[in-house]
């Protein structure tokens, strides 16, 4: 049954990794704007530059 000490320790360490991940996500501002990134990733990077030129 002594193995349980190791197992508990590992599980706590894994849990701490997730806690740190949460704290990092929060510090880096990922919860500040929950709408923007979902739309931003869908925008085209190259907006019709050619169209612009033909019109001029």
């Amino acid at each position: 049954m002594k193995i349980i000490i190791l197992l508990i320790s590992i599980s706590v360490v894994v849990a701490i990794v997730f806690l740190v991940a949460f704290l990092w996500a929060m510090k880096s501002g990922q919860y500040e704007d929950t709408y923007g990134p979902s739309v931003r990733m869908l925008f085209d990077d190259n907006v019709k530059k050619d169209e612009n030129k033909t019109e001029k």
Partner: protein
Amino acid sequence: MQTTLPKKPVAEKTYCYHCGDECLFEPILAHEKHFCCEGCKTVYELLQDNGLCDYYELEQTPGLSLKQPKSSEAYEFLNEEVISKKLIDFTDGKTTKVTFYIPAIHCSSCLWLLENLPRLESSVISSRVNFVKKELTIAFQQDNVSLRKIVELLASIGYAPLITLEDEAKEQKKTSSPNRKLYAQLGVAGFCFGNIMLLSFPEYLGFDGDEEYLKKFVGYLNFLLALPVVFYSAQDYFVSAFKSLRKKFVNIDVPISLGIAALFLRSTYEVFLGGEAGYFDSLAGLLFFLLIGKWFQSKSYDHLSFERNYTSYFPLAVLKWVDGATRNIPVSDIKKGDILLIRNKELIPADGILISPSASVDYSFVTGESDPVKRTQNDLLYAGGRQQGASIKVLIEKNVSQSYLTQLWNHSSFVKENEEQYQQLINVIARYFTMAVMVLATGAFIFWWQQSPTLAVNAFTAVLIVACPCALALATPFTLGNTMVMMGKAGLFLKNTHIIEKMATINRLVFDKTGTLTYAKDGDVTLGGRYSDDELQAIFSVTSHSTHPLSRKLHELLSQRFTQKLPVDKFKEIENKGIEAAVNGKEYRIGSPSFCFEEARVSTTEGNVVYLAIDGITRGHFSIRTKTRSGLKQVIQKLAASFKTTLLSGDRSTEQTLMKEVFPEETPMYFNQTPEMKLEYVATCQASGEKVMMLGDGLNDAGALQKADVGMAISEDVASFSPASDAILDAGSFEKLPTFLLFSRRARQIIFICFGVSFAYNIVGLSFAMTGMLTPLLAAILMPVSSISIVALSTVLVRLVAGRLKLT
């Protein structure tokens, strides 16, 4: 937004390609698209030239109406270093970073366009939108482009940033950091709570004799997990308790801190020396639930907080006349002897003497009277007035801090009891509660000391642990927070939750008439007859010269369509009749029926009717209506049944008979009231022991709103808040006023119920603790259960009551 809806002379409804508004007049055709105004068309062309037409593909008609463009000098103040410094986040001499609060951000097209700003202005290095906060952060090369240019560019595409002295974006930034800390504290507490609970399971189920090592291991692990909870998550409670003790004042955080400290110290002792499991699970759970309560509280505050900041009423910068040229200076820099140029519709920021030949000042902000006052050279102009018409020059007589409006504002009787002095129910209870707990704990300690010192220490700490008023602390914020949210949904916005407690004690209601019971400024304007574009533009130009409220109304309506004024000759305003002028060789007359060669056909009971004649031929009329609020009589009758009522009006007593019908006979009514008189009346009522709620429309009764126990502003448009008020009632929810007042009383009762339940928990817990029978298991169950049940109870009760009162 314009509240006036004219009848459309256009037969078919057309919608603007840019902003999606209905085109009220002949739409402008360009690039095979319809636009409602020149502003919208210009934005479209600007975007098209830069290949940014994707803007229109992401969302339908994403644009913002530009019907009322700002004058080109509107942002001149940004050239002033004093002002721009306040706005800039960061600068290294080359690159400057600035964050704007842009209320207009509303869809993904906005986000896309604003983030493509570098394509419109090459000196902009990057721009980033925070959609939720409606903020735009821009980095630009300051050598190539000025801050003003950036703001003007934003304004020209319809995203004018909101800039005030107390910049709102800056305020939000300040509040965001403690919020982040709270989330981190909550996260840590939740993490530790979950793990400690899991690790405590074996303890509750019982260990076998040979598993002593496991028990020790779990104990140490729990201790390690509890450390961040106590030293990080519980930090704020200790700090707050320490601060309040230093001020010789006991707040609710004192017993909480005491309980946390006792719980931690005793558990540590038990784990390391006593060989028991301790109460770490209760400790972490306690903190977790307390922080959830705090988070909920700050969340509801965030939603509905607004600043009581009068500086936002004045234009940020004013034009100062120096050596024949104008310079922008911030309002706070105005000094006696300065000469200021006040343009059309600008507020006079300080008392001064008129230098220009004549001025026409609208004091509706101060007196409630909407008719403008004529002033001639050398007359004294009071601050708070609004110039109507051509620009005037004013020699400032007093510094801003002394001027009329600030005087009114800073009047000593104006300052409401400080929030700290104001004894919140919870703090009063906390004081006695803490004392009682200390007495009980000491009593138990002394009682058990003779029998067994160990038992005495146990009982002492157990009393502190179990009496920790977590349920008590949660009852108020949850009940009031829920109530505030429910009220917000129904159209009443509160400054903070204390207002609910104050509302519950009100026994006199004082009403302002103008803008509160009647729509003063707001009437329907109906365009009767057909006119050509040229004629409408001529009317627009003519009315711009008149300060008569009806011409203004008409002008306002037409300014949606036109920006260019035509030259106007022979302008003449004849009192009680109307105005006459010549435009493009045609003679225009706008005014009373006889003045415009017309028999009065439209009945005048509907409100005011203005006729129009061109070259001596009647062409049509405009009717402008004023109304009383819907359901006014029923609301007043309901309120009069349980409250004393008073009517105070800044207007002349013309509507007295109408008001007599609405109010019960014994209601005192006062007319021609100045703001000071209103304030004095409220003060008199308060002196005789009454709790007064003042209902007004904003600045002209600002003093009374501030002085009253609860100052409620009634607003057509919730965005235009009154800084003096404690609460803002959406005009559409006026009929619910009696319900709101009843709801606030119910909320108070709900708090008492929750207190009762929470006390019952405490009595049960205390009785166990006093007799030295408190086990870790019992404490662990009792505390979270009491907290959760209080939260659930208050939420359910508030929703139940709101449903009963038909608020939702």
